[in-house]
């Protein structure tokens, strides 16, 4: 999905990130050249792929508690409510889902100790024994059912309702067991169990229905931390939840401060006033890399910077024109200059590591090789243009870009230069975020667009469905290229309904290849997900894009 602001780039609940070895950059570059991304893995003993490794820059963790730890945030989160907070960096510490992800992106137990799909449309979850809310009261099946139903309650208007489109009902089927029934088979419901099943205490929520989520009425949860102080404006102080079902984290007092200005945030890091931030402005990477007391980890965030071309209306209904522009994009140059070497030139729109848990190395490499790369080549660009309806160029392309995405201007500037060689004039204009999205979601006169897309769960479907389904080529949806054909819809049908996981993922991989071949969506760069952390601290264990929900529990004192 596209995201509205720098704020949400780093903080959506399923926020993907990895802090990884600089080696991975090499590994991914290797992948672009035809190797599997895991070939150059970090060399860890258990043979896990490199993508799941800590950055080599992060030292080992030492024992000991951290009395207080402050995180700088670019913006407040609005409501303190797992479903309605506008950023999740705070609330993930207070609420748990039925399931969660391990570092590889596989589903593992959360509040549910086990689960089972008993038919196409029924899922049964066994809750852990003895779960307690932070006030010490037991978590009941009714609390879970109430919490899940909030997603479809119009009075709540939960944005997470999008994962509940196939949801029909949830009922208690045993002392510690719930059963979800769907109205139609939805192979992706299993991911919803790790995204949109946060559990809060029913009694408190009902008593405070009017003002739930405001500082005086914070829903009671089960997570490792509970808020002791909260202000939507200035931040929060969280303390450990002594009733937490998992291991107690090292940080005793977890503090959040809103520091909106990026330059002030950088100075706050340098002065030690904050210990970490997820809001590192990528275009300033060069400056941030130089903060002496801070380590910055850059992991691929699963996010892709993408150009889309509306294939249904002129001039971009001409595949040769689209390919000509694709060849004129200097991805290498953009990754190195705009992102200061912290992004990967993209091939297609889905980062290859998304396929890692589904494909073996060979299959992954074969697939990635099959995706057209459009290596920067002005001669090929001219050849393609010569075959198009505009052999001499003479076109003017107008493009809006999102004001908060400051990197976009630099990307567009490099493309503008290259397109001049094709006698194509690219003009671009900054637009406030709300206006940009309002225009984009109107789904009219789409032409060429620049946006970025991040997955909500570790499956290619999250990219292909939103960008390539015919059902999404409508207002308020994401198929900005209006890309769909009979062939693509057949693959989409496999992806949407086939009970066989492998068949679904292969259909997704083929769709990605198809869209790239058609140059409907042209990937520019796989974006890093940055984290800035004071050198006194480190991130413990396998820390991957899928374990954001546990980020605070993994902060430890760095071994000196």
């Amino acid at each position, binding site marked *: 999905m596209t995201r509205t602001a720098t704020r949400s780039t780093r903080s959506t609940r399923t926020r993907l990130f990895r802090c990884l070895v600089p080696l991975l950059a090499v590994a991914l570059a290797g992948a672009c050249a035809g190797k599997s991304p895991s070939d150059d893995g970090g060399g860890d003993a258990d043979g896990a792929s490199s993508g799941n490794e800590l950055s080599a820059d992060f030292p080992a963790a030492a024992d000991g508690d951290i009395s207080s730890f402050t995180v700088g945030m670019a913006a407040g989160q609005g409501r303190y409510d797992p479903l309605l907070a506008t950023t999740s960096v705070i609330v993930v510490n207070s609420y748990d889902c039925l399931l969660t992800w391990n570092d590889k992106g596989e589903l593992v137990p959360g509040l549910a100790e086990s689960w089972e799909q008993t038919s196409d449309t029924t899922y049964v979850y066994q809750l852990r024994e003895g779960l307690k809310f932070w006030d010490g009261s037991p978590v009941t099946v009714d609390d879970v059912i109430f919490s899940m139903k909030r997603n479809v309650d119009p009075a709540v208007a939960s944005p997470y309702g999008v994962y509940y489109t196939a949801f029909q009902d949830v009922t208690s089927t045993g002392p510690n067991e719930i059963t979800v029934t769907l109205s139609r088979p939805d192979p992706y419901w299993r991911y919803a169990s790790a995204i949109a099943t946060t559990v809060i205490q029913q009694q408190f929520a009902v008593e405070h229905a009017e003002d739930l*989520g405001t500082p005086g009425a914070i829903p009671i949860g089960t997570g490792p931390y509970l808020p002791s102080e909260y202000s939507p*404006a200035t931040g929060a102080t969280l303390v450990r939840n002594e009733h937490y079902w998992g291991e107690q984290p090292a940080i005793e007092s977890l503090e959040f*401060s809103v520091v909106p200005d990026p330059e002030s945030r950088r100075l706050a890091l340098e002065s030690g006033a904050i210990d970490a931030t997820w809001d590192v402005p990528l275009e300033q990477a060069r400056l941030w890399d130089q903060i002496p007391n801070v380590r910055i980890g850059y992991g691929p965030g699963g996010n892709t910077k993408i150009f889309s071309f509306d294939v249904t209306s002129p001039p971009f209904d001409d595949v040769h024109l689209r390919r000509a522009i694709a060849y004129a994009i200097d991805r290498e140059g953009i990754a190195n200059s705009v992102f200061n070497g912290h992004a990967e030139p993209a091939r297609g729109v889905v980062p290859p590591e998304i396929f890692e848990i589904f494909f073996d190395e060979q299959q992954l490499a074969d697939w990635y090789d099959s995706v057209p790369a459009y290596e920067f080549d002005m001669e090929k660009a001219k050849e393609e243009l010569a075959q198009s309806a505009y052999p001499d160029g003479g076109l003017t392309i107008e493009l809006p870009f999102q004001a908060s995405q400051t990197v976009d201007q630099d990307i567009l500037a490099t493309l503008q230069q290259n397109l001049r060689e094709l006698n194509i004039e690219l003009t671009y204009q900054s637009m406030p975020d709300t206006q940009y999205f309002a225009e984009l979601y109107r789904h009219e006169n789409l032409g060429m667009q620049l946006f970025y897309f991040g997955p909500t769960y570790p499956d290619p479907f999250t990219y292909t469905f939103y960008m390539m389904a015919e059902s999404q080529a409508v207002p308020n949806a994401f198929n900005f290229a209006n890309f769909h054909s009979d062939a693509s819809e057949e693959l989409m049908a496999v992806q949407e309904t086939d009970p066989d996981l492998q068949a679904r993922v292969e259909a997704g991989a083929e769709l990605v290849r198809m869209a790239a071949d058609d140059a409907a969506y042209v990937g520019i760069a796989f974006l890093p997900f940055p984290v800035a952390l004071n050198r006194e601290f480190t991130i413990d264990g396998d820390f991957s894009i899928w374990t954001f929900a546990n980020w605070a529990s993994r902060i430890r004192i760095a071994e000196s």
Partner: protein
Amino acid sequence: MSIAWYILRRLGVGLLLLVIASFFVFCLLYISPGSPEQVLLGGRPSTPEIIGTIRAKYNLDDPFLVQYGQWLLDAFRLDFGESIVTDQPVTTVLTDRAGPTLALALAGLVLTIVIAVPAGMYAAAKRNTSGDRMVSMLTLLGSSAPTFAVGVLLLYVFGVSLEWFPVFGNGTGFTGQLHHLVLPAIALAVTQIAYVTRQTRAAALRVYEQDYVTFARSRGLGRSLIWRRYALLNSSLPIVTATGLLLAYTLGGAVLVEVTFSREGVGSLMLQAVQSKDIPVVQGLVAFAAITVTLVNLGVDLVNLAIDPRLRKEVTG
């Protein structure tokens, strides 16, 4: 006409101003593209049903005049609704945010008056000397230094390098808040000082050329007496007006200073609310600004009445 009637009339005009301003801002927000549900969705994928539910929850589909009329009716009952983003009553949000802004505005104003008035008087007294030129040069520098640049410079020097002052936030407790206030107040005051110094110098020069000053001099009155009793008092009208304007402006939101120093005041709230199209909060802020401007202007005029008997005569007839 009595003073009471004068004040009442001014307040009435202020109320009218409030209605007009709120209507225009409401219009602007309404016609500007984008809508709050995108902020609530945070760019997540969505379905028409979910968007419909959110729009219904916040009455975003009501006709324009119905929405405005409802807001106005509630506002007259002092109910400014609830923030779309935080769900808090707008009045609560505003009271939380007004404190830090008020403190910043007053601290900036105190700094400004303490430095700018003597500096301006000095420049006028020593006009065309090197001292005057020095003051003029400094005011030029001050008025052309961008506030955010001054802010970042102060942060770097006194926050990061010297570690004398904290780098962000409002602080807690009286001393904590005062400590957090120093750098922002200076950043805010730099431009204000330049402006008020120039106003003071010009006003004092005008007074200095008046016959009554020449007459006072010819009577052999001391220089300091002339300056204090004649020049300062008579040049204070434009100074009071200028500082009043500055105060009203800052209370309406010292956006740059608040954002640079991460002070959660009215200015940063305005920025966030407009960006997220949080209409109830923006409307609340407009009302707040209109009331502030009205009250500060009234205050300024009352002070001027107290200072200048000629004005007093005009008003009371």
